[in-house]
């Protein structure tokens, strides 16, 4: 299903033409209106007329998260404060938060891409959209909210937390779409089970729109089984707009980047060079239509591969074939590069393993060691230690076979791994904690 059929089904050449036109116009716009970019252009001796085609984008400088931090809070704006009607901020895990600002047109564009993102997996105006993303400075809650209203859904602004009430609301108000982080979806499913609520019988969910953290295909299957819905990946980041930068369609085969608004590139994170189609690297976005805080070639830190072939849904908008993780989340364990999402994928294929896990990285002498902590479930407890040790072996072997990585496995009691109602914490790096 399409929200904006014309924009969503543009052919590849039509898209490129539009992107080129919009790129030239945004470059012109930021040069005129952003002190930050004007200075950058001068530093690089770059003229707007140098950017005369879409390929010319590689001449543009990158924008980094540190640029947003250095110009905190309003230094990256391309408009007067009078035109800004909203700000959001990302949680500053390191130092100050990153502030982003929207004009009325920006909010309108965001609502448009969010509406597409709700309709693409099958949402309609008849749906009851339960938004369990946090409302506030985080873009998740309000992003889904405005998109839902644009489509005409009945929006339940539940926000995060109080899972008991969430379930009550979903049951009583007959929610059909659940939007939250995948880790919170798992938590809701677990909670429901504990409270003897059977999602198949007691809830009406049919679609899940889950994002704000990388999640694997095997977690998708688990959530779908546990909550009796079809789960779809939504991608976004506040610097670009928030959720709704990309969204999976009914094919469940990668999130379509709404590339008439956000132009994607894949680059080599080391050299900064643009990579060819099908190559894995860091995802970079140029906002083509933003007014308040347009960004050129913003480095997301997310590693992925883009698929440009036409999707069975009829869209040519390129698809993000699963975010492997953030460039800075990549673990290097004794020389093996591994993303936590890859370990998750292996773990969740083992039926005896519960849905929560924690990866602990530490150093033993000169060696990095990775401990995978998983919770014991009723499915595997027995009176024999041997059986549990067998499971530990099974986990070790599966990870070693799939990723060529030797890990330690630690079984803990259920509930021992912290649950999250927002973004899940899956890694503890004791090497950093010790240094810090």
């Amino acid at each position: 299903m399409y929200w904006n059929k014309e924009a969503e089904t543009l052919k590849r050449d039509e898209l490129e033409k539009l992107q080129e036109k919009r790129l030239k116009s945004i470059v012109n716009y930021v040069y005129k209106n952003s002190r930050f970019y004007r200075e950058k252009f001068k530093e690089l001796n770059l003229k707007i007329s140098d950017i005369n085609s879409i390929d010319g984008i590689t001449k543009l400088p990158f924008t980094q998260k540190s640029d947003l931090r250095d110009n905190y809070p309003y230094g990256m704006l391309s408009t007067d404060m009078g035109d800004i009607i909203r700000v959001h901020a990302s949680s500053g895990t390191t130092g100050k938060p990153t502030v982003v600002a929207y004009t009325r047109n920006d909010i309108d564009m965001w609502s448009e891409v969010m509406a597409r993102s709700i309709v693409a997996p099958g949402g309609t105006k008849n749906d009851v959209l339960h938004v369990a993303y946090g409302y506030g400075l985080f873009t998740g809650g309000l992003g889904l909210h405005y998109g839902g209203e644009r489509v005409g859904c009945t929006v339940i602004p539940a926000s995060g937390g109080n899972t008991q009430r969430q379930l009550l609301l979903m049951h009583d108000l007959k929610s059909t779409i659940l939007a939250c982080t995948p880790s919170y979806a798992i938590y809701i499913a677990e909670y429901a089970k504990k409270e003897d609520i059977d999602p198949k019988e007691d809830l009406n969910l049919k679609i899940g729109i889950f994002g704000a953290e990388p999640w694997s295909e095997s977690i998708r299957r688990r959530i779908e089984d546990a909550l009796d819905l079809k789960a779809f990946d939504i991608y976004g980041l506040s610097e670009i707009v928030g959720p709704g930068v990309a969204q999976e369609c009914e094919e469940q085969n990668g999130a379509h980047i709404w590339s008439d608004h956000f132009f994607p590139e894949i680059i080599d994170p080391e050299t900064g060079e643009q990579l060819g189609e099908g190559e894995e690297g860091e995802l970079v976005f140029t906002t083509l239509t933003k007014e308040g805080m347009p960004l050129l070639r913003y480095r997301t830190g997310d590693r992925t591969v883009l698929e440009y072939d036409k999707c069975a849904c009829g869209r040519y908008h390129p698809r993000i074939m699963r975010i492997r993780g953030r460039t800075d989340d990549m673990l290097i364990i004794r020389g093996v590069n591994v993303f936590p999402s890859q370990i998750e994928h292996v773990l969740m294929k083992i039926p005896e393993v519960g849905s929560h896990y924690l990866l602990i990285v530490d150093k033993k002498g000169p060696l990095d060691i990775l401990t995978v902590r998983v919770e014991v479930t009723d499915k595997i407890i027995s009176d024999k230690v041997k059986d549990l040790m067998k499971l530990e072996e099974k986990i070790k072997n599966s990870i070693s076979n799939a990723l060529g990585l030797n890990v330690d496995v630690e079984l803990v009691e259920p509930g021992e791994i912290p649950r999250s109602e927002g973004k899940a914490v899956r890694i503890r790096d004791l090497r950093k904690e010790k240094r810090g």
Partner: protein
Amino acid sequence: MIKQISIFLENEPGRLVKVAKILGNANINIRALTVAETSDFGILRLIVDDPERAYSILKENNIVVVMDDVLGVEVVDKPGGLARIAEILSNQNINIEYVYAFVTNSHEKAFIVLRVDEEERAINVLKENDVRILTSEDVTEI
């Protein structure tokens, strides 16, 4: 056969306290217990007077627990009691995976709990040697 409760415990201070308190508060009496442990976890095995109730109360408290049948036999509480049972089994080449024992109030009889690799055959040879196999009632009524 008698009911045994097995509980997963992390190898950390306070874990046994939690389980013992849950059972104590529910007025469940522990007849015998044994712990098998590795460096990071252990399995606590229990024989209690009311296994069904113990099992459901532990479950309610989110303890990972399983209940199954184990072989229990009665011996005279005298030196050589265990040796006799072990010998009967070993003569038949039946392996004991784990074993623990407790005495009854009268101090005349001891109960031995056994996990063996070939349960059915073990029961038969023990019966042939006039060893009494315990039932759930035996444990409840101590």
